[in-house]
């Protein structure tokens, strides 16, 4: 219900109440009355046909940088990844019933059984 998406302002209509925004190549007209500061090139956050806020590019970069610094363990360690990946590459034929196990209810990995 609170679905809202960042989209780039392509152009502002005269009067400044409406704008065309672009999201991954899709364009749509939205109301920008609630973000009077928005200019072409800015990213606004669109909700029910209205821009309700703006993206601060510097803050976005900072957050992403923060994510990047987190590296401590290697990726790909999800407990159930292995059987999935075997299936994906065709190295097992199938998983038995109830498999692959959910890590949240299991204390460790489960063996892969041929059906």
């Amino acid at each position, binding site marked *: 219900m609170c*679905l809202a*998406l960042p*989209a780039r302002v392509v152009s502002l209509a005269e009067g400044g109440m409406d704008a065309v925004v672009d*999201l*991954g*190549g*899709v*364009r*749509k*007209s939205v109301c920008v009355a609630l973000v009077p500061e928005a200019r072409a090139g800015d990213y606004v956050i*669109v909700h029910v046909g209205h821009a309700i806020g703006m993206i601060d590019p510097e803050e976005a970069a900072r957050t992403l940088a923060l994510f990047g610094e987190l590296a401590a363990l290697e*990726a790909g360690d*999800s407990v*159930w*990844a292995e059987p*999935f990946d075997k*299936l*994906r590459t*065709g190295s097992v*034929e*199938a*998983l*038995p*019933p*109830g*498999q692959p196990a*959910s890590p949240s209810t299991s204390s460790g990995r489960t063996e892969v059984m041929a*059906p």
Partner: protein
Amino acid sequence: MSTIKKDYVRPLNVKTGRVDMNHGAGGRAATQLIEELFLPAFDNPFLRQGHDGAALPLPAAGRLVVATDAHVISPLFFPGGDIGCLSVHGTVNDVAMNGATPLYLSASFILEEGFPLADLKRIVDSMGAAAREAGVSIVTGDTKVVEKGKGDGVFISTTGVGVAAPGVDTSGANARPGDVILVSGTLGEHGVAVLSQRESLAFETAIVSDTAALHALVADMLAALPGREGDLHVLRDPTRGGLATTLNEIARQSGVGMLLWEADIPVLPQVDAACELLGLDPLYVANEGKLVAICAPEAADAVLAAMRAHPLGAHAARIGAVTEDPHRFVQMATKLGGRRVVDWLSGEQLPRIC
């Protein structure tokens, strides 16, 4: 000399004329509509029999395949197609998903009083062109007219008749644990293209419907398995309800589970974007020129190669595997690295997209 004028009928006004109740009453106006609009567009010797139905040569061997679909799409014209070609492709594909070569189509029209004849002509011409391109004949039909406000422009029900070679069986009940799941290309274009025309949504995108006839692709896939056509276990076109619903149907009919890899499922970026905008999931968006194939693991490479060699399968991909699962869950490893169920479509994702 006879004073009776030549059997002259004023030609249909296809510029500004409209469908009226007379066109459905079975009299001279109905005959005229058929003769001036439908016959030239669909022309073939079977239709020209002009009977209540068509008498056709019986195919030599195999199984007879019959499939039907009603088309009630709104709007009638959309980027990449219209209800006319869609009504051919939709049914040709259902025949093809039975592993069959489509031969004949019947077409039943329900027209709303007041529908512009110019639009009807466009639609009927598009149907004719699609049928010719697909190599099928529209051999018989029917036209009814309903009062203004009791229909919506035009509804078209088509039924296809085809023949499947012996040994071919692509029913949804054939998936087995260990089978490989393939799709023939990027998903969701049809639904997004149609939605982009809805007045209430009004977004702009370069996406066009993928509507296309898939029987030639299917023929190539079967040809890639000479003598072991039976290894192609399941064929389905993920139309209404999209890939998610189609796979759930198969899982249910076959009594199996499935695992998909989100990262391997081909979706165009603009389709992704449009879905984000509308709060939709591309896995539930309709396709009209894509198929899902489930085959024995040892057949997967050959089938995939055959698909990729066909223009309509250029972006074919292996997207998952069939599992043993009494709950018949279709599960997906998300791009994020998580896992979730890919459930049946619940409720109505998009109204009237086919």
